[in-house]
């Protein structure tokens, strides 16, 4: 069982008091030209998840408290929660360093895409 502390309202609760919104930082392919999106990109957006063994980033909602969404960094092996950050934020560098290499690759690819 996970014991989670909501970073928005500060309430501490067990897993059932919160709702897991799945993997964080999934970006929807651009929608201005739906026909231009490749099947692969759409497949990756809907189905493909990182599912790492180790430090992972997830979205959680304070379901029975303030009702706000936030990001949590969780170790999928030890179930330890390493930190929280805002729902509109990217993971802090300290957490990203600990994360699975899949995540570092994810943000590097995003950065590259933004530059091009």
């Amino acid at each position, binding site marked *: 069982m996970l014991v989670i502390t909501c970073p928005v*309202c500060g*309430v501490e609760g067990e897993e059932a*008091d919160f709702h897991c919104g799945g993997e964080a930082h999934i970006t929807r392919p651009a929608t201005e030209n739906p026909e231009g999106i490749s099947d692969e990109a759409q497949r990756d957006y809907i189905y493909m998840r990182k599912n790492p063994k180790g430090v992972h980033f997830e979205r959680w909602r304070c379901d029975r408290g*303030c009702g*706000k969404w936030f990001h949590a960094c969780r170790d999928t092996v030890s179930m330890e929660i390493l930190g929280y950050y805002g729902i509109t934020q990217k993971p802090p560098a300290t957490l990203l360093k600990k994360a699975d290499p899949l995540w570092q690759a994810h943000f590097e690819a995003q950065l590259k895409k933004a530059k091009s």
Partner: protein
Amino acid sequence: MSEALIITPLCDREVPANLAISMTEIVDRGMIDLRGLPKDKKFMDAAKAALGVALPTEPRTSAQNGESLCLWMSVDQWLIVCPRKETAALLDKLNKALEGIFSLAVDMSDARSIIRLKGDRVRETLMKGSSIDFTQGGFEPGTVRRMLFGEIAAMVHVVSEEPDVFDLMVFRSYAHHAWDWVEATATKGSEVGFLKPAEAPAVV
């Protein structure tokens, strides 16, 4: 004009006699759902002017002005609980004060039902249905806590302690479930007794 007849969800339920706590439905309260940004000074000032008391910004607290209560629901949401008859006037006052300000005030009087629990066993009864430890600090009078109670979304407002008076608020459609749950878990003889020892059963 005839007076509107208000039918509360639990109006047909009788208060069971064999309970370790006392339980009644509160029927004369109106509720207004108020949303706005606490960072917006204009909003906070306007709400304060209309309600007569500043909205609580500290999580899980409440503020009171006479018979009106402002319960903290979220960082941008409050539940105003006031006498049912004054709800329309207060809502009107709020809407006028908040005109042009990014906010929302809606009459939600029929959305929730309030069950008042009273007695020494209230805390342990609530603990049978939730994951919260009501024996720890942080449940002083005025505290508001939203929670999962008996598998449903609920909210508890600590009205006073010693004797403990807690208002349990649940959505109207779940009122019977909550009532049944409390009835089943607060029956005499089901006391856990870690807060106050249970009375010894009568010797026959």
